[in-house]
């Protein structure tokens, strides 16, 4: 069998397994835990996608909620505003059937990702001229500008936001399925990227931009591509968020959201995909687990954050990764992902 047939078959098998697993989870776990799990997944997509920009390419971007917002609003605009027109042209787009729902969600995701990556390119361009803290504050500002713009566009509800977005993952298990499908996708892209020469150029830009430039790496292209790719996945997370929560407003995408996503990346260990995923699950689930402490939970949560940063300066995992290679082999020999 040719290698790509094996590849396609294994991917199809994995997706089918994921679908069965999400069905199993939905049948066994109570709804509240499931909802937390979905939230964890969405934030994990955001953290891993920011890790592409922040951790792997070393561009200090802390305004990820802006791309999240662009994806959410464009995706919601498709299902609420544009789809009714499109469905008159071809009835294949009608919602209500599982196939139609899936098709619409995929279209919304494609549009949201495209719009978010355009926004990413727009933010990536200043990164050609700015570095470090200056870039950070510009990206933070960009996220805030996007929020204020959304606040002022009446077609998407302004300050009220959009509500009553048709849920395309109505049966619950579909929500888990879609979120974790995209999570697996962004993790696979990050992991595979780090094992290619292209990915090596990204790491080279992180380690030393001037040296990378001198070695013939097109740093401009690397940086803009990183922003485009990272924000595209944030856009996908936004689309999923909009269609699972069925209501969005500009408040959801404020500075605090940007900050929490950045925190996930750094806490997990900048550059570590596994770390970003773990930290996202931890930071979403921890406040829920601390709920029994009522008013004090947020204080305890933030104190734990400071203490973790002081005691593990490189994040939970540092630049290490968890995977087949590290689990089943004692010592990893020179994978490009590790420093």
């Amino acid at each position, binding site marked *: 069998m040719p290698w790509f047939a094996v590849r396609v078959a294994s991917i199809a098998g994995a997706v089918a397994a994921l679908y069965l697993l999400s069905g199993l989870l939905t049948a066994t776990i109570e709804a509240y835990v499931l909802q937390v799990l979905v939230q964890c997944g969405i934030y994990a997509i955001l953290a891993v996608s920011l890790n592409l920009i*922040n951790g792997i390419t070393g561009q*200090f971007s*802390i305004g990820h909620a802006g791309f999240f917002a662009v994806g959410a609003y464009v995706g919601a605009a498709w299902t609420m505003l544009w789809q009714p027109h499109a469905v008159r042209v071809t009835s294949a787009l009608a919602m209500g059937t599982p196939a139609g729902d899936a098709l619409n969600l995929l279209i919304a995701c494609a549009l949201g990702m495209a719009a978010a990556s355009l926004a990413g390119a727009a933010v990536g361009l*200043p990164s050609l*001229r*700015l570095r*470090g*803290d*200056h870039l*950070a*504050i*510009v990206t*933070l*500002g*960009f996220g*805030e*500008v996007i929020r*204020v*713009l959304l*606040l*002022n566009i009446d077609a998407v509800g302004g300050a009220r936001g959009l509500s009553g977005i048709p849920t395309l993952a109505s049966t619950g298990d579909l929500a888990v399925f879609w979120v974790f499908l995209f999570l697996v996708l962004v993790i696979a892209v990050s992991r595979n990227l780090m094992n290619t020469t292209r990915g090596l150029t990204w790491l080279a830009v992180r380690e030393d931009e*001037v*040296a990378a430039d*001198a070695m013939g790496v097109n740093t401009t292209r690397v940086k803009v591509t990183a922003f485009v790719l990272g924000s595209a996945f944030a856009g996908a997370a936004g689309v999923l968020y909009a269609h699972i929560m069925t209501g969005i407003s500009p408040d959801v995408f404020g*500075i*605090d959201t940007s*900050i929490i996503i*950045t*925190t996930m990346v*750094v*806490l997990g260990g*900048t550059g570590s995909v596994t770390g970003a995923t773990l930290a996202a699950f931890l930071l979403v689930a921890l406040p829920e687990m601390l709920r029994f*402490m009522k*008013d*004090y939970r*947020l*204080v*305890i*949560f*933030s*104190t734990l*954050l*400071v*203490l973790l*940063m*002081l*005691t*593990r*300066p*490189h*994040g939970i995992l540092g630049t290490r990764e968890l995977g087949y290679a590290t689990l089943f082999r004692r010592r990893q020999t020179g994978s490009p992902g590790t420093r």
Partner: protein
Amino acid sequence: MEWFVQQLIYGVQLGSLYALIALGYTMVYGVLRLINFAHGDVYMVGAFVGFYACTAWLPFKDLNAHPDAVTTNIALAIIAMAIAMAVCAALGMVIERFAYRPLRNGLNRQDARFWGFVGAIPLAVAVSDQGAPVVLAVYAVSGIALGHVLCPVVAWLRRRTVLSPSRLNALITAIGVSLVLQNGGLLVFGADPRFIPTIFPESSIALADGIHVGIGQLAILGVSIALMLGLRHIVLHTRRGRAMRAISHDIEAAKMMGIDTDRVIAFTFALGGALAGAGGFLVAALTHVKITPMFGLLPGIKAFVAAVLGGAGNIPGAALGGVLMGVAEAFVSGSQHLSTYRDAIAFCVLVVILLVRPAGLLGQHVPEKV
């Protein structure tokens, strides 16, 4: 024309407040290259201390009931501002000592004891309806106990961690401290917005036809200019100030010249905290804003934007950037169609200026050596 001058006056007043906060950011950035995210929350604490000073601690009289109490009120206000400044200076030093210094030097036993006391706060709050002696006893005992538990943990961690100053790491620590202050504020002060009652005359002076300047606006402007001049004196003409400048120039060389860098850095945080406290008090007492535990977040970020605008680490630059941003914001929020874009204008100005001058308005561009 009238509209223009009126907005300009408002903008300069707003800008002088931004400048006060921005100075604290820029001084810390100058010596440590750290975005002290918690600075906006120090400003919030200043406003709350001002609120308690004005409503509970000091015998202010409501001017609506006692119109003749103006002079005593002004004298008391100076005391209240001094209290706010002192509390915020101390807070700045505590933050530096127990959150940022361990980042540079590693954790030690004292840090463990301190964090034990932080961890004991929820316990103390849990018994807060039992009366002060019980609360204090519970707090002291549990704080000491927690500290003792933490000590061996910290010692163990200290052996294991390799210190490496990472900018991202420092930033997240700062964000964490900011979250601690906000959530702690929610716990201690409550989520209800507070207002300081009218304690100053609210009359305004007519400069020309249709152009008025409020007494409060003048007071804010005057006090902030006085504070900035004081800061300028400290930085340029005292030994401490010279040490600060030396550290921001080259911290390693400053250490070798015998400067106690930890002390000077603590002093820098105290200065910045005092300015933020003064700013918080002025805003709370003179502009009737709603004081909530979250109210430092946006002014804090805008003030940092102002500091970057003027050239991060550059003290006159921060003042200039603050005023510029205040004016830009005043014009946008005063205009008919754009007023809802008020919170975005700061960042738009920043992007434009940084694209033209990446080091900020007064910052010096340092070419990268290879």
